[in-house]
């Protein structure tokens, strides 16, 4: 318990807390500025996040060359003081996460946070967003379990605000589920920390390995289960993932994007850290394998069943968590290597896809696949922007999704156990089903002929509160259309309007002659002729000229995702070194303990 300033604090270790401090400071500044100086506020956010990206890159280089960088907050040594550690894994996660958050911030500036509601104030969004970034950085840098908990909480509180932005009824409903689950998980996390502290007398991660080795096996397993359960809720692996598709899709596109990209990966990062540093060995690997398999399969089957694009992507998110858990469960250097690579790849791709969905919503007025169509002709750029990350997610060969999956599958084959082979098979199947889900999106939203309303640029389209029956009959019509579209693949998919094969149920409805149906029959006509068609419910203004910064940042992120492919060799080398460092454990421990 020695106090006093650290003499050996090099420049690099002084940089370690900056990814946490800078966004927090900027958030405070922006709250102080309040509603004034919008332009300055945006500039502040972008400058601060750019600085954080640069700092993270420096940390990545230094951590790779000179080992983990450590910062003792206030100069207090562990176990009393707070330690921030940036080793290879933390630095890599920081670089990827801050780059992605910077991209999303630029995107949200272009969007103006004006989707659907005017009541999404910038003066709330920006500070919360920065606090979220600070929380995520804190979890990546935390050198003790309690600081990890605090990082989680910072992140959570900010995410509550972001998720319920504007306070509409849909977001409050979604926010309630999310808040309660998060609250429960943080209580459980605290209990797990108490358990660890009660058993070992410390929560510093560098001190824990030595302390845990002295414990009886049962206690260790109990602690491992408690921590893995908490991180499993965060990472949204199968039995603990039901909250995710309910809560994410209602938020504004940039918020969903950053949540999907980062918040779940924080859970995966924590799992990686605890499974390598605290609980090495193969105690719970079988359980993790089964969880991974179930996540993979249940998630992707859920995705295939969805008709809303955002929900579909949320389910693929759950599914692809399985790959990372698989890598962790293997507990071999190759497994960790693949998992780390996959985390980096998946953060980028998933965020990009959600941003593209935001653009689709802008152009098409909806994220419902049954209302979309013809976007490939209406906006070819959008089609390309969707196509590349979608193929990347599905794992088409030259792209990084393929490389990441290949790395994991090879690690599974190298492991050679029956369960590993089952998971290899499950992973391949999931990859194929992801491709199917993406092809379905492509066929419905991009490839088939557009509904008449979509050609009317700037027309006000109804988005949500239509009649349920109308929805369903329409759903029926276009679902059948979609089915035939996917089944006959190349059979003139762009030529027929979405009434062709769906005529039978439509006629049946007309024959019944309900009021809603006649309304539906007439609905396209006014939308086609005048621009002031007003429908009940929420409204979206569609535009052909999407804001430059939205397109720009999405293009940037797509390119960033492609960079993983181009730099796959060096990146795999790096993740290999990271995995070695994680398994070796001594670099981390000695960096913190020897000072």
């Amino acid at each position, binding site marked *: 318990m020695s106090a006093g300033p650290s003499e050996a604090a090099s420049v690099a270790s002084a940089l370690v807390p900056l990814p946490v401090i800078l966004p927090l400071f900027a958030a405070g500044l922006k709250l102080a500025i309040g509603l004034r100086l919008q332009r300055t506020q945006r500039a502040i956010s972008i400058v601060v996040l750019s600085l954080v990206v640069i700092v993270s890159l420096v940390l990545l280089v230094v951590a790779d060359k000179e080992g983990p960088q450590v910062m003792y907050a206030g100069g207090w040594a562990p176990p009393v003081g707070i330690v921030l550690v940036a080793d290879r894994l933390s630095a890599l996660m920081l670089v990827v996460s801050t780059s992605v958050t910077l991209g999303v911030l630029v995107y949200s500036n272009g969007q103006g946070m004006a989707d659907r509601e005017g009541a999404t104030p910038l003066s709330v969004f920006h500070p919360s967003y920065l606090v979220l970034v600070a929380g995520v950085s804190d979890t990546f840098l935390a050198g003790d379990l309690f600081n990890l908990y605090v990082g989680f909480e910072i992140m959570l509180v900010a995410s509550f605000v972001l998720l319920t932005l504007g306070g509409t*009824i849909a977001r409050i*409903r*979604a926010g309630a*589920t999310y808040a309660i689950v998060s609250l429960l998980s943080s209580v459980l996390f605290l209990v797990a920390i*108490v358990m660890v502290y009660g058993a070992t007398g410390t929560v510093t991660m560098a001190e824990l390995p030595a302390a845990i080795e002295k414990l009886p096996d049962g206690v260790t397993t109990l602690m491992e289960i408690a921590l893995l359960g908490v991180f499993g809720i965060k990472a949204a692996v199968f039995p603990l993932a039901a909250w995710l598709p309910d809560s994410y899709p209602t938020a504004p596109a940039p918020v969903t994007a950053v949540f999907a990209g980062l918040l779940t990966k924080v859970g995966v990062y924590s799992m990686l850290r605890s499974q390598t540093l605290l609980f090495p060995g193969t105690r719970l690997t079988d359980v993790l394998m089964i969880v991974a398999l179930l996540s993979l399969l249940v998630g992707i089957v859920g995705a295939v069943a*969805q008709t809303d694009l955002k929900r579909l992507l949320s389910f693929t998110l759950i599914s692809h968590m399985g790959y990372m858990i698989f890598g962790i469960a293997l507990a071999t250097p190759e497994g960790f290597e693949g998992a780390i690579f996959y985390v980096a790849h998946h953060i980028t791709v998933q965020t990009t896809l959600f941003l593209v969905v935001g653009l689709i919503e802008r152009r098409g007025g909806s994220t419902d696949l049954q209302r979309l169509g013809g976007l490939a002709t209406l906006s070819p750029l959008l089609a390309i922007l969707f196509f590349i990350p979608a193929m990347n997610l599905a794992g088409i060969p030259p792209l990084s999704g393929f490389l990441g999956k290949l790395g994991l599958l090879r690690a599974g084959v190298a492991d050679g156990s029956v369960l590993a082979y089952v998971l290899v098979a499950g992973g391949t199947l999931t990859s194929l089903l992801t491709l199917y889900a993406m092809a379905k999106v492509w066929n419905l939203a991009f490839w088939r002929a557009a509904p008449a309303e979509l050609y009317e640029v700037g027309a006000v389209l109804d988005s949500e509160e239509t009649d349920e029956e109308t929805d369903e009959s329409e759903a029926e019509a276009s679902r059948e259309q979609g089915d035939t579209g996917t089944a006959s693949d190349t059979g003139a998919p762009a030529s027929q309007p979405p009434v062709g094969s769906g005529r039978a149920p439509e006629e049946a409805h007309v024959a019944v002659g309900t009021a809603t149906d006649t309304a539906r029959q007439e609905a396209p006509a006014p939308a086609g002729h005048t621009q002031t068609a007003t429908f009940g419910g929420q409204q979206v203004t569609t535009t052909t000229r999407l804001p430059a910064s939205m397109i720009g940042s999405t293009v940037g992120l797509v390119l960033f995702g492609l960079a993983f492919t181009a730099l796959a060799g060096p990146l795999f080398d790096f993740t290999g070194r990271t995995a070695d460092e994680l398994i070796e454990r001594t670099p981390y421990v000695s960096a913190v303990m020897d000072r």
Partner: protein
Amino acid sequence: MTLTLALVIVGGTLFGAGTTLLLCRPLTRILLGSVLLGNGTNILVLTTAGAAGDAPLLGFGADTSTIVDPLPQAFILTAIVITLALTAFLVTMAYRAWQLSGSDDVQDDVEDIRVARRAVYMEERERLRATYNDWREAYQSMVGSEEEQRAAERRAYQRLGKARDRYRELKDRARADARAHRARQARAEQTAEETAEEDDPWETILGADR
């Protein structure tokens, strides 16, 4: 390390009550549940500090062997602040939910229900389609059988008609035969009478030619 049993019991009770409340629908109850859970956890944290002792203040002549572990107390302070923030947020959210919908119940996910309903709807449609097909088949078979019957009747009628025609023909022919027969007989009788009257074969044969 010694544990204070009272703290464990209190913590456990709070945890149980909190969990029960957390399982309710209204957000207000969930809120209370989360507060209880948070407090229960804090008390459990306190148990890790071991038995009660002196205040952990260095530099006031305190004996480091009798003071309690200060770290759990620091944990609790942090946790209390966090619970406060979360509670404040939940209260606001419950109020907003009440403002918007008149109740603060946690709602089911609409899209989930829609997807589930769609499955039910599809099943129902399949079922109705199957029933419809069955009925139509039954109707058609029924209609078919009726038609067949009618056709059979018509055929029967036709057959009957033919038979009647034949019968009538035969009857007519028979009548004609009978008439002819009767005529012949009548003529024969007449001739017989005539011959009986004249009783002269030559007269009968030659008649007026004679």
